[in-house]
Structure formats: structure tokens, C-alpha cells
């Protein structure tokens, strides 16, 4: 159960020989992720933690068989090329960990992938993880206990914090999806909530938003129009953020009057979604909805 990836997902790591790529390949393998190959231009023939390395995805498929998903660790300058390679090679899900990719490059490859029906997670995401089955990301796996809460977030460590709070109160997670911290991402809250709606292993959803943009408001309006729903508890970071300042993430900025905390909170609440004041409140609010 869970969405996007499971224990049968066959994964390639793009940029597997880099410091980050190699390090997280180890952690993903330890988690049980089925990593069948990696790419690193010119490094064909190498092995990284036992995973064979190729110059191209095409070669990897030829020698290792079909591949479903990739996780991209290559530096920002080369990341778009890696995404195009993954999309053109027929993969279905591409997780882009890379931070700092120019916005207009992202716009292009995200539009391209969407038109071709390929899911981009990120860029600038901690990745995604279906608990106990497959980790396609850099999050500490042990934080997420197995359960029936779908977790979708624009943040990294804050998500781990929330997952820990959930675990403390006995709530486990089905899948956690990091949307990514950039202004434009492959998936948004609506996309992921839709997947959770269709997932039998998910009973309720925790949505972790932040200031900047209007993804939370759009989700709230979308949710309002649904006839079949699963309960949602939201948390929005950035109540104390001043306008015009980038709060770490490129996407976390209140600009042109769009993206402030109060608008998000108000719109969510007007749609009947409970918004927690602190991460620690989330489990009890969830409990009140599910009992």
C-alpha cells in the first residue's frame, strides 16, 4: 500500500558516484529500495555499494531490464539533462533531489514531463518514501512508522519532526511525499491528495505547507468541491515570516501579496480543514478526526 512507489519499484540513481549519490544509495539500499543501477557519465563498469554503474540509462535498461523510477543527485547545472534522459528513457517517476536549479529550466522540464505523463517529484525535495517498502529520497527512514496517514509536505526536516510526533501518538505513515521547496514543482498538494484518495492504505492526510505561492489555497478550494474525501489536518510554517524575504526555500516567499500565512490558514479553515498551531498538535487533531 501507499502511493507512487512500492517494494517492486525498480530504481536507478542518476549521479550515483557523487558524494551525496553514493551516500544515499547506501541508505536507500539499507531501507530495502530495489536499486538496480546507477548512472555517472564515464564511470561505466564501476560498482557503488554493489550497484552497477552505466554511462546512460539506456545501457542500464539494456543490461538490467526495465526501470520504473529514478532519483537524481546530479548538480544543478546538469540536472535538467538528467531529467530529460530519464523522461526520454521511458521512466515513470523521477525524483529530483537537486537544489538550486534555475527556475526557467525547471519550468521547461516539468512541462515536458507532465505532457508525457511522467511524474516529477521535486526539484529540491527530500524525496518520497512508502513505509517499509521503498525509499526514494534522503529522509531518515526510521522516523516514519508504518501506518495509514498520508504525509505530503513542502519541507524536509519539519516533515521528519511531524512524522516523529505522529509516531509518538501511535500514528504511522503510508507514504510521505516531499513536494520540494522551489516555486514550481512537479507535483502539488492536489495531485498527491488525489493519489492518497485512491490508496486503500491511506485513511487520512497530513498536509505540511509553508508560506509562498498559493498551493495551499488551491488545495483548500479543490477539497471544498470534493464529494468523497479523506480527513486532512494541515500545518503551515511561516506565520512569523515578513513579506518579500526568501525563507530558505526559493518557493517560500510572500511576493506580490500572494503567499502569506493568514490567507492560507483562512482558506483551509473555510474549507473545513483543521490547521494546527504547532507540529505537536497534529496527532491529537488527527485523533479527534479519526475517532
Amino acid at each position, binding site marked *: 500500500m501507499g502511493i507512487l512507489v512500492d517494494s517492486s519499484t525498480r530504481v536507478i540513481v542518476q549521479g550515483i558516484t557523487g558524494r551525496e549519490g553514493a551516500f544515499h544509495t547506501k541508505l536507500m539500499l539499507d531501507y530495502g529500495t530495489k536499486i538496480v543501477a546507477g548512472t555517472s557519465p564515464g564511470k561505466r563498469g564501476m560498482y557503488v555499494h554493489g550497484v552497477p554503474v552505466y554511462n546512460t540509462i539506456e545501457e542500464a535498461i539494456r543490461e538490467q531490464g526495465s526501470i520504473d523510477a529514478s532519483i537524481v543527485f546530479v548538480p544543478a547545472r546538469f540536472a535538467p539533462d538528467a531529467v530529460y534522459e530519464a523522461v526520454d528513457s521511458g521512466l515513470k517517476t523521477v525524483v529530483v533531489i537537486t537544489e538550486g536549479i534555475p527556475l526557467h529550466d525547471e519550468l521547461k522540464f516539468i512541462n515536458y514531463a507532465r505532457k508525457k505523463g511522467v511524474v516529477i517529484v521535486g526539484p529540491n525535495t527530500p524525496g518520497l518514501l512508502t513505509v517499509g517498502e521503498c525509499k526514494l529520497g534522503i529522509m531518515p527512514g526510521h522516523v516514519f512508522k508504518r501506518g495509514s496517514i498520508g504525509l505530503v509536505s513542502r519541507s524536509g526536516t519539519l516533515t521528519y519532526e511531524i512524522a516523529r510526533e505522529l509516531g509518538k501518538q501511535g500514528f504511522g505513515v503510508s507514504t510521505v511525499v516531499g513536494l520540494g521547496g522551489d516555486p514550481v514543482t512537479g507535483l502539488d498538494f492536489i495531485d498527491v491528495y488525489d493519489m492518497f484518495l485512491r490508496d486503500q492504505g491511506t485513511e487520512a492526510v497530513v498536509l*505540511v505547507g509553508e508560506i509562498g505561492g498559493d498551493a495551499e489555497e488551491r488545495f483548500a478550494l479543490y477539497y471544498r468541491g470534493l464529494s468523497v474525501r479523506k480527513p486532512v489536518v494541515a500545518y503551515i510554517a511561516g506565520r512569523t515570516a515578513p513579506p518579500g524575504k526568501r525563507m*530558505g526555500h526559493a518557493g517560500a516567499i510572500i511576493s506580490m501579496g500572494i503567499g502569506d500565512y493568514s490567507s492560507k490558514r483562512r482558506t483551509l479553515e473555510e474549507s473545513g480543514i483543521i490547521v494546527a498551531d504547532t507540529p505537536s498538535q497534529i496527532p491529537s487533531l488527527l485523533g479527534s478526526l479519526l475517532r
Partner: protein
Amino acid sequence: MKLYEYEAKNIAKQYGVPVPRGRVAFTPLEARQVASEVGGEVVVKAQVLVGGRGLAGGVKFASSPEEAVEVASRLLSSEIRGVKVSAVLVEEKICISRELYLSLTIDRAARKPVFLVSEMGGVEIEDLARRYPGKIKRIYIDPEVGYTSYMARIALTALNLPWSLIGDLDSLLKSMYRIMVEHDAELVEFNPLVLTCDGRVVAVDAKIIVDDNSLQRHPELQKLHGREYLDFERRAKELGFSYVELDGDIGVISNGAGLTMATMDSILYYGGRPANFLDIGGGATRDRVKEAVKLMLQHPRSRVLLVNIFGGITRCDEVALGIVDALGEVGGLKPIIVRMLGTNEEEGRRILREHNIDSYVEMDEAVKAAVEASRRG
């Protein structure tokens, strides 16, 4: 990164966008020179990166070079919303028939550039969106296709301009898209774009915001980066931290943008006020932590420092050592409250204990302790 109006107009001019004649002046004398070159009545505009300049008295008129000197000296010695004015733009005064709004920005939902077009210009887009939401026309650009001329025909209708201006509008929109792509802009805004008394279209104000992630491919812009920062922000950014100055008294260090904001927000929730946003990022080493802690120990306004670390890639022992090192170098200038958990948590906690630093497991407890300390402090 925001560009100054005069910088945005210089770029616009290179792309053939009609802007008023004139240029920037850094001294009253330069202002006189520009005013006499331009001739006739001029407008003198304070160059600042904050909004609401007009209402704050940052835009003045002058009917002679002498008056321009006077106006410029006054502006150049003033502050607009707390920011010192170090330059003014001196331009011909345009005879305005109608004020329009035109911008090109990124629609996050559609994941596309979008022209925002309105015949109600001259007010900020926020107000426009609030007061006349039905009066803003959105025209999307597919980033794989780029600008194409039919968009100008739709914009012309929305702006209620005469058909004779279609060629000018087509060039203008095409230039905006080229500016956006070639400068990696997030926003290219002309507000107001005006229809002049003699029937031309002129960009009377211009704003360009460049995507920070793209600065490395624009060296001429990269060297300007950071100039809008306050002193303390600049120091933090030079150390490579994501940093924003706030006005409270509890210093914050955390890892991850979301967790850092949540830490700030929790401080507010429990009755305190955060002094800053400082994200040390993922996997910070002992040395990086030391630099962050030293910086915040020296932060003038904050009276207590809260360090909130969720250890994943970041190791708690490294964090603890960094804290200890910082205290060793600059001394315990203010109380430090540490919350840490995750990777190597026990070892981290042991190190802190050895140096008599309290550490918490739960974020709420740590935040409450910090708020309390700030009241005592």
C-alpha cells in the same frame, strides 16, 4: 533578487521597450545635469527596493534643473520605509492619458509564465487583485513554445487599446518574454504602463526580479546580489547561511527551512518573538555550527539563543561540538537553549552536559524554555 527601477529600465530599453527619457543620479549635481539634458518638467524618483514608494513621498516633480537639485538633495538625504536613498532616477514627465498594468510572472499552479494584463494600472497588483479581480486578464505562455503573437491581440483587447498599437504591443510583449528568459527573471512588471496623451505606450515604472538560483549564469547580476541585505543578513549570507532578520529577541538556529520557520512560529505561539531565521542546512559540520552559533551569540538584539536540530544527515555530536567551540571562542554572551534529537543524539547530549548546557528532546519544551529565558533575560 530585485533590480532597481533604473536598472530594470536600462534592461527594458536595450530590448526596445519605450521608457521615459532620463537616467539615474547619485548626487544632486548629477540630478541637475540629467534634468537639463532631459529639459522641461521632470520627475525625480527615489531608487529603493521597498514597495509603496509613492505614498512614502519618494516621487517628486521639478519644473527646472534648479528645482531638480533641490528635490534630489532632499530625497538623497531621506529614508523610505527605513531604507536610505542613495540614488534617484530623473526622467521626463510623461503626459498620461490612461494608466495600465502589464506584467509577466510565473504562475506556480499552471507551472507557466503568465502575462497579467489590466486596464486599471498604477495601483499595486495586490490591491488590483483585491479590488478588481475580474479586471485582470491572464495570458499563459507554454515554456516549450514561448511567446507567440496572438497573445498581443488578446492583451490589446484586455487593455482596451486602439488597434493601431498592435505592432507596438506585440514588440513589447515579445521583449518582456525575452527579458524574462534571457535574464532568468521571475517577474517583469511595467506598472503603470501608460497610454500617453499623444497615443504612445510607455513604461513609466519597471520592476524586474531575477531568480536567485540562476545568478551564477548572469555574472553581471551576481555581483549585485546581496546589496539589499541589512548588515547582519550580509554577514550570515557571506558565511553561507540562509538568513532573514526579524524584529524579536529570541535568536533561532535550526536545520531546514520548514523546521526553522516552525521554530519561529512556535516561539510566537508560546508568547515570544523570534529575532531571525537562520537555517544551517542539511549535514552541517562542527565548524559550520560553530560559525552559526558565534554569529547569533553576537547578534545585538537577541537575548537568548534557541538551537533546534532534527538530526538526520545532520549529526547531533557535530552540533554539540560546534556549540561548545563557539562558546569557547566568544564566550557565553547569552543563554543557549538546545533541542536536538536523531543521529548521534546521546553523544551530543553528553558533550553538552559536560559543558553544562541544557538540552531538550521535545521541541515545544525547548521553545517554552527559550520564551521564558527571554522574559527573564
